[in-house]
């Protein structure tokens, strides 16, 4: 069984400590949500997990191998990340952008093959973007662009998907239905999903595990059902929250 393991991980950015000596194992088939207040280092932690920046101390292990020892190409085939925003300097089409996800799987001399393009068209269709393949990125709405990025991530075919606020810009239908579908697929295929979320209820809907960042490096992680308490969330957000149980799911509402 595959796993991404953080061993005594300390991640800092500027004067902010996202986590101190965090040891946690993300296992195949699990869906994690990282919760915490603004500016607490959630995105930085996610980038660290993606191997894009070095942790201050501690190591990341893919299976039993340190992430540092894995080649860039192999890493990009294993771990994919959805960033919060994109700021393209030069115009690009929807299809071109989606196809960037195939990059780690193509050799130096290869171009994208028919199969890659077919795959891309399918992914775009799954995200309701069919017919928009040749549209320029700048002509899309924020939500459409977000879905193009999601398509690129799907095409990367990684075992680990790191999502930085995936629900951003998406309307209710896409948040609940399309995203839910994607996350479910990942889970079914034995992947690991770790996402930074702002909406507690959406996080509870999709994830089975939580990683709570309290600030000053203090963290708590574990089973979502166990960690989701009024007390924990109120402390997390520095604002009292109430829990309302309705058929099977607990809903948290700011008091």
């Amino acid at each position, binding site marked *: 069984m595959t796993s991404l393991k953080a061993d005594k991980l300390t991640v800092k950015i500027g004067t902010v400590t996202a986590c101190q000596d965090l040891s946690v194992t993300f296992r195949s088939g699990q869906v994690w949500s990282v919760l915490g207040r603004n500016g607490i280092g959630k995105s930085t932690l996610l980038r660290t997990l993606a191997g*894009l920046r070095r942790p201050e101390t501690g190591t990341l292990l893919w299976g039993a191998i340190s992430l540092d020892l894995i080649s860039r190409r192999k890493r990009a085939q294993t771990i994919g990340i959805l960033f919060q925003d994109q700021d393209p*300097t030069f115009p690009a089409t929807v299809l071109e952008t989606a196809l*960037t996800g195939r*990059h780690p799987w193509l050799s130096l001399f290869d171009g994208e093959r028919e199969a890659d393009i077919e795959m891309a068209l399918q992914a775009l269709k799954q995200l309701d973007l069919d017919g928009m393949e040749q549209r320029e990125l700048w002509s899309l709405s924020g939500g459409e662009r977000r879905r193009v990025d999601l398509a690129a991530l799907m095409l990367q075919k990684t075992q680990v998907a790191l999502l930085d606020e995936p629900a951003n810009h998406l309307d209710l239908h896409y948040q609940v239905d399309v995203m839910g579908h994607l996350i479910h697929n990942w889970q079914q295929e034995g992947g690991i999903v770790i996402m930074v979320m702002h909406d507690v209820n959406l996080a509870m809907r999709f994830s089975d595990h939580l990683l709570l960042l309290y600030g000053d490096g203090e963290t708590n992680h574990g089973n979502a059902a166990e960690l989701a308490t009024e007390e924990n969330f109120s402390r997390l957000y520095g604002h009292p929250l109430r829990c309302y149980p309705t058929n099977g799911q607990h809903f948290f509402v700011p008091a």
Partner: protein
Amino acid sequence: MIAAGLCFLIALSFGSANINWATVFESFKTGSESFDHTVVMELRLPRAASAFVVGGMLALAGVLMQVLLRNPLADPYVLGISGGAAVAALLAMLLGWQSDLISVTAAGGAMLSMALVFTLARGRGDWSSTRLLLTGVVLAAGWGAGISFILAVSPSSHLYSMLFWMMGDFGNSGPGYIRCLLLGAGLATTLLFARSLNLLSTGELRAEALGVHTLAIRISIYLLASILTAAAVTLAGTIGFVGLVVPHMVRLMIGTDHRMVLPASVLFGGILLVLAETLARTVLAPRILPVGVITAFIGVPLFLYLLRTGIKRQSK
């Protein structure tokens, strides 16, 4: 490709001395020693070849700089490489050195400028586009002041050739094997990494997340673009416009995939400069105009036209 061949033919056919197409063909076939033959083979051919190679190098360097700095306004000269070359070349002219020596000195100036930007921008290990751009632009401004200073203190007898050098001028020398090789090798190498360049232009972090070794690629791009620029500038002075606008024209015409943009830019930059060079010789013949002026005269309306039609196409 065909267009490129045609342009060469045009470049060889037109000039102060009236030589028709047939004679141009003739001089290729036979090794006759006629006057026309000499003009075509020893004056016009090397100039046209130089123009093509320089145009290609500047356009390629322009594409690379725009990706490196993630700035559509970047051109081969933005980081001060041409400024360093110009200061060195003008100094050499001021001292009355031979033209061969001027090229060598200009190359030295370009390399010095390149090394300065490279080390200064490096700072504490971060090599961000903004920092690189600022370092380069400030250094370029410094070189600019240096150029003005030299022009101000130079005797008027030197001024004409100095100004001409800066506006871009092809001597009657060919591009030489080294420059041809450099352009070919540069294009081939960048083509191999064209997909990485595509990713890099969408953002450094994204490229890194997709497995691109961004630092290594960016440093290579910087070095390659600098060397190409230096090679172009030392042959023909600072011909403006080609490096900035050709990449954009190509993007407007064929899209942003660098696997297409790179070769098309080289070809198009070459063609534009061959045409500009021909016009520079013929418009006010027998006077020769600075090529840089002509590239802008052709390029500005062409670019504006493409920009308008390109935008219309996209908004449909």
